[in-house]
Structure formats: structure tokens, C-alpha cells
């Protein structure tokens, strides 16, 4: 099998794709946002319950490719209990990792388990899949009223 493919579809990504965490609607969410990439068909809703500045609970539902779905799953797992500012800082690091040049390093310590998405930068057309859940979350945290898309 192609090495880049093996690196892209790592076991952890495939596990989260098959058994997504926090994969449900949240009836008492105080924030929700919807992200949709019409060309791909990736379509997710992110639900957040805040307690002050802290993300008390977070979940998602919808459908999409393995990259977008596992990204959403791992994002929710990583952010539970984090503050709004911490969530944004983490996305900045994730974004740096995803959009870095091929072969360039990234700060693995800052992204934790999300480093499993480091292979996505080899596939420029798939970066938008990994970032869709994150941009959807940001809209939830600071609503602008716009439909979220990364296409």
C-alpha cells in the first residue's frame, strides 16, 4: 500500500471514523452550528454547552468522509473541559499542522493526539475535510450567522 495513504488513514483516524465519540445531537446545547461542504457532501452539526468560558460538553452529528468525521470526533474529545481561548489556540496549532508545507515540521506537543492528522498536509484537497468541524465549532463559539463551509 502507498505510504502516504497509510499515514493519512492511520488506525486512530479509522477508529474514530468507525466509532465516533460524542456522536449525537444535544437537546440542551446552548450553542449549535452547521458546517456544509456541498461539493463533497460533508455535513455536520456541532453542539456545545458552555459553563462560563468553559466548554462543559460538546458533541456532533451528521455525515462525511473518514477525514472529516474522525476530525470532528477527535475535536470533541480534545475540547471537553477546555476554555474557549484554549479551543481557539488548539485550532490554530492544528491548522498550522494541516496547512504546513510537505516535509515541514510541526509542534507535536501542542496538538497532542490530533497529531494523527499530520499526514493530511500531503493531500491539499483534503485539508478542507479536516478543518470543516473546527470552523463549524468556531461559528458556534462566536456566531456570525453565516453558513460554515471550507470549500
Amino acid at each position: 500500500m502507498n505510504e502516504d495513504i497509510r499515514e493519512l488513514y492511520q488506525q486512530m483516524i479509522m477508529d474514530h471514523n468507525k466509532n465516533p465519540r460524542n456522536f449525537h445531537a444535544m437537546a440542551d446545547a446552548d450553542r449549535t452550528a452547521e458546517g456544509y461542504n456541498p461539493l463533497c457532501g460533508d455535513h455536520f452539526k456541532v453542539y456545545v454547552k458552555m459553563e462560563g468560558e468553559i466548554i462543559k460538553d460538546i458533541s456532533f452529528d451528521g455525515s462525511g468522509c473518514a477525514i472529516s468525521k474522525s476530525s470532528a470526533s477527535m475535536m470533541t474529545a480534545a475540547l471537553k473541559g477546555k476554555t474557549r481561548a484554549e479551543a481557539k489556540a488548539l485550532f490554530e496549532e492544528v491548522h498550522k499542522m494541516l496547512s504546513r508545507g510537505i516535509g515541514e515540521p510541526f509542534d507535536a506537543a501542542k496538538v497532542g493526539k490530533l497529531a494523527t492528522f499530520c499526514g493530511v498536509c500531503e493531500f491539499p484537497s483534503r485539508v478542507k475535510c479536516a478543518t470543516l468541524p473546527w470552523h463549524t465549532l468556531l461559528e458556534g463559539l462566536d456566531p456570525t450567522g453565516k453558513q460554515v463551509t471550507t470549500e
Partner: protein
Amino acid sequence: MDRSADAKIFDVEQIRKDFPILREQVYGKPLTYLDNAATTQKPLAVIDTLTQYYSKENANIHRGIFCLSEQATKRYKSARHKVQEFLGAASDKEIIFVRGTTEALNLVAQCYGRTFLKAGDEVLITHMEHHSNIVPWQMLSEEIGIKLKVVPINDQGELILEELKKLLTDNVKFVAVVHISNALGTINPVKEIIRLAHAKGIPVVVDGAQAVAHTPVNVRDLDCDFYAFSGHKLLGPTGIGVLYGKKEFLEKMPPYQGGGDMIRSVTFEETTYNDLPYKFEAGTPHIAGVIGLGVAIDYISSIGLGRIEAYEQELLNYGTEKLLQVPGLRLIGTAKHKSAILSFVLGEAHAHDIGTILDRQGIAIRAGHHCAMPVMQRFNVPATTRASLAFYNTREEIDRLVAALHEVTEVFQ
């Protein structure tokens, strides 16, 4: 050069040599190009024609009093004649050059639809139309209040003709139907549909984008009133397409755009429009594209569409059989009469993941809704993976596709 004379041998390896891109590699793998429904590759004859035109012959047509312009005009006219013969049209005045199928269909909706249809009139389309044969009619609906009626399809992806007959009421004033579905491969019985519509005096436009490079088309035999296709799906350049229209319709329709070439005389008080086909071709046309399209038609005719169709059917049968052996693979579109388009879903794997994995093996396929979202909704899938074949594809390429699909299964087990 007349290879059609040699009817028995279809020498695909020889044909492949005419297409320089087929020698390219992607990620160190030979390019396996299976996205022909999106656009076909170009034979050297077409590529050389464009280079030759721009490096030695470029001039604007119709008005120049100099050698190059006269030559360009002659070649432009001769290409129109080639299209006329290719489609079996009665006159080259019935051949309108446009940018592509999309523009051709918009022209019909705007120039025929907006002029001759009125609020409450129904336009009958099908569930398997490409967005380009849905949206122009929806826009017209917003503009003048026509209604859209949709002929349903069955689980195989075939039109339900009984339903079509029921929907063909006296309220229907126009029918717009796709010849071959880009998402399913279904070949529609357009001749029969046209016959049914004409029995009630209803004109018909056929979207031939997926047909002209894969099956012989004769507009007079079909008796369609309009027929649309794109040059780039017929080995020609992008940005050039054709609308065939019966003279009686084109003559009574108003122009599409105003500008140079489409007029006979202009004063600030009054403008007299030019004759067909120029009435519909405002401005400097895509001259190189038209000449290139003419060469593409010469090329495909030298091989022969009958032979191409037979070869592609054989390839389709082989591909269908091989794909169905991939565990968890389900074909979307299993019509009895099918063109060489293999649209499928594979287990839990999303079409874009499949596309990425195949790409690294040098295999170019399409993943998505194929600009036919209603088809995806009908089959309750977000997207499909589509391999669409052309006469330069081989069994070996299908084997490569199948091997790569096993790799997908491995990743997604």
C-alpha cells in the same frame, strides 16, 4: 487513415498512441484516466491544430480583407459543416456554436422558453437530469411562472415510461431530457420520448453531453427539436459546444445575446438581426475551439462511432463483472441500456476517501454528486464514485481500478 474500413480490429494500443497524455505518470504510476464523463483527453491532431492555429493562422473571422482572416473564416465555416454532417442535420444554419452544453440549454430556456412559454405552462424534465438541465428551467420558472414536472426513475436508474406518458398532459409545453445520464450511465429512449411528445405537438430538447462521443447520433432520425453537446467531452477543446436547433424554431426565436456578428445593420433607432446561425453568435467566437472541434470530429469519425460503441460496451461488461466481485461494492445505475459509466458505493468508504486512495495509484475517477444531486437523493447516497470509460481505456486499466479498490477495502475493513 480510414481506420473504420478495418472494422474487425479495434487496436486500442495504436489508438492510445494518439493521446500524448496517456503516456504521463502520476505519483510514479501510469495515469489511468477514468473520468471521461467529466472531460475526454485530446488526440495529438487536436492539440497540434490549436498550436498551428495560434502560431501560424490566428486572425478574426468574417470581416478581415486579408489572407489569414479569409483562411480562418473558411476553416471556421468548414468546422460548422463537419458538425452538421456529424449530427445528420439538414443544414449548417441549424448548428449554433456556444460555450458548451450548459450554455446551449440556457439558450433554449431563455430564447425559446421565455418567448413561447407562459405562466402555468409545464416543462417536463427527468429525475436524472444534470443540474444544467434543471436550473435554467427553475430560473425560467422564477422569471415567468412556468412549472417543472419530473419523470421518476426506477431502482435501476431507468426512466419510468408509463409515468412519463401520464405526465405528458396538455399542460406540458416543452420537454427537456438527457440522452445518457452522466451519473448513472442510463441510455434513455429519446427517440420514443420525442415521438410521444410530438404526438401532442410538444417540442423537445435533448442534452447530448454524454452521448456524442459514445454512440452515433442523428438528429433527423431522432427528430429532436434541439440537441446540445460540449466539444471537450468529444476529444475537442474546452469552451466550445454546439446547439442544434430545427430551423423553424431558431428562426422564430429572438437572439440570445446582442453584439457584433449577430446583426445585419445597426442604427440607434433600429437593428436588423443577421440570418441563422449568426443571429445566435454575438461577438468574436471561440475560433480555435471551433476549428479544434472540427478536427476532433474528423478524428472520432475516422475510428467510427459504431466501433467505439461496440468496444466500450465490451469494456463496460468486463468492468461491471469485475467491480461486482469487489466485496461490499454496489453499483448505482444498472439500466438495461447503459453507456460505459460505472457509478458505485463501496461499503462504509466515502467517495472522497476512495478518490484519494485511487489517486495515489494514478487512477483518476470522479467522487461526488456529479452535478446530479436529485439522482443522489433518489438512491439515498451522499455521493458516488464514478469511473467513466472511453474508447482508449483498456481492460488492464479496469484491473488496476479493481486492485486499488481492494486497497480501499483494506483501509476501511
